[in-house]
């Protein structure tokens, strides 16, 4: 599903009703050094509602930068960004910071590799989720706490667990990631960017988290951008795959075709190193 046809005035309504469309996104890190290679160059893709798009590539290829750039969370002042990020009828690159802040969390959410690190160590987890809810949905504290508790339960962090282990450092990596997902999804975003969500977890927890994400995709119609260097994971979970190398899109398409019949040499080498390990 890579179809995209933009109307002339840039409206993001496409033939297939994409949740997110990225057109010609380029990101440079050093304003003062025009000769330095761009972090991202002319990225194009489109994300449909309920689609899981995997982004793969070796370390340093630009995967995390892409994730952060979609949220406009790159370090300010040192970045030159071109192109368009079309979401809910707006080009995100045209929005100012307050408008962008309203979208972060409630429009596009993000979870990170270091789940425990992504939670405030000094606050009980349920309070953190409740804060997100208050912030975006404007609920008063008690309501927010209740909703937080419910969301956490849905994600597999039951009230009993929270009673025993209210703080992030007391929870296992898998539980922390569930809590982080709860915090992200409690704001009811349309898109979730998952940056290496399972890379710090053991294999059993990995599978569980992926299942959780797929379940939520179905339940909420959530689109997920799954960034990972773990090829088998992306191969099994993603609908479409984007292959990134040195900040450029090398190949993109349905997951099956990318895995079985990769077109580019780079993709082939990525896949073969993986296959080599399991052969």
């Amino acid at each position: 599903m890579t179809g995209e046809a933009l109307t002339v005035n840039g409206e993001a309504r496409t033939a297939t009703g994409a949740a997110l469309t990225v057109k010609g996104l380029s990101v440079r890190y050093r304003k003062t050094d025009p000769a330095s290679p761009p972090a991202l160059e002319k990225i194009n893709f489109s994300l449909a509602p309920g689609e899981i798009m995997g982004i793969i590539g070796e370390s340093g290829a630009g995967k995390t930068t892409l994730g952060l750039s979609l949220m406009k969370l790159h370090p300010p002042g040192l970045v030159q960004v071109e192109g368009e990020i079309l979401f809910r009828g707006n080009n995100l690159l045209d929005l100012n910071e307050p408008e962008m802040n309203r979208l972060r969390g409630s429009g596009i959410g993000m979870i990170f590799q270091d789940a425990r690190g992504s939670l405030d160590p000094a606050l009980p987890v349920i309070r953190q989720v409740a804060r997100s809810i208050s912030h975006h949905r404007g609920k008063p504290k008690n309501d927010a706490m209740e909703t937080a508790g419910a969301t956490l339960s849905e994600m597999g962090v039951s009230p009993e667990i929270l009673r025993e282990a209210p703080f992030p450092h007391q929870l296992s990596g898998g539980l922390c990631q569930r809590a982080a997902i709860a915090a992200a999804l409690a704001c009811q975003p349309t898109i979730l960017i998952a940056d290496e969500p399972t890379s710090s977890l053991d294999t059993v927890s990995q599978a569980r988290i992926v299942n959780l994400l797929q379940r939520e995709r179905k339940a909420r119609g959530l689109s997920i951008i799954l960034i990972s260097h773990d090829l088998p994971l992306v191969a099994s979970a993603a609908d479409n795959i984007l292959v990134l190398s040195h900040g450029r899109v090398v190949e993109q398409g349905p997951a099956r075709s990318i895995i079985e019949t990769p077109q580019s040499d780079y993709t082939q080498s990525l896949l073969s190193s993986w296959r080599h390990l399991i052969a």
Partner: protein
Amino acid sequence: MDNLGTIPAPLPASPRGPAFFSGIRRQANENRLVAVGAAIALAIIIMAALVPLLPLADPLKPDYEVGLSAPSAAHLLGTDLHGRDQLSRVLWASRTSLTVGITASLVALIIGLVMGGAAGYGGRVADAAAMRIADAFLSFPVILGAIAFMAVFGPGIRNVFMAIAFFGWPVFARVFRSSVLSVREQSYVSASKGVGGGSFYIFRRHVLPNSVQPLIAYAAMSVAGAILIESGLSFINLGIQRPYPSWGLMLGEAMGQIDQAPWLLIAPGAAITITTMAFFLMGTGLSRKTDPRIQGRAHS
């Protein structure tokens, strides 16, 4: 560092690090700090050395006819209660403060090297013992200790040296010890040993170069701190004794006459501040160059 007399700690730089702006520019800044500090310090030292050659009034001779006179052509910085020329006293005092500051720091450095070396090279017992002692001294507010020291042993320049060295050595011991220990743990030391390098060789080739920069950095800070301690002690009459000129002493004597003779404050106060600052900047610049940076850049 607090200017209340503890041996100072450097002002840390922002931990954001070179990920956010050119690393080269930051290095240049640190070099600039060191350069400025060193230049001023050097200038002051040279001037202090040349003082006996300058055509100055006698700093010790009282002349009550001209007591407490404002700055004039005859006395560029005015005179104090006893009619002594301020300019001359300020310049002569620089010799005292610098001598005390630098010498006491050197003594502290040497003691620190010995103790730190013993801790680093000796067994775990020696290490633990030396460091416990060092910690005990480090947690002691230095100015209080110095005052107690002077009270018990009597004032005077020699005891000021000892007091400063007495409380100043732990910093050097710690720095040197950590250099020794970190070098010993490096793999290239085992490699050296493997090829037959003895302990002394390792010391010369690895430990010394590694530890020189932080030691100099702390030495500079120590001089800064020592100058403040000496002037503090002299201010309250427990340091350099009358009639010898010391910046602290001059300020102490000026205390009763601020209303009538405010000019008496400026020269010695500025002198202490500038001299201390010069050494402090040197120390800060040098110590930042050896500090690890925190990288904030995201990897993809």
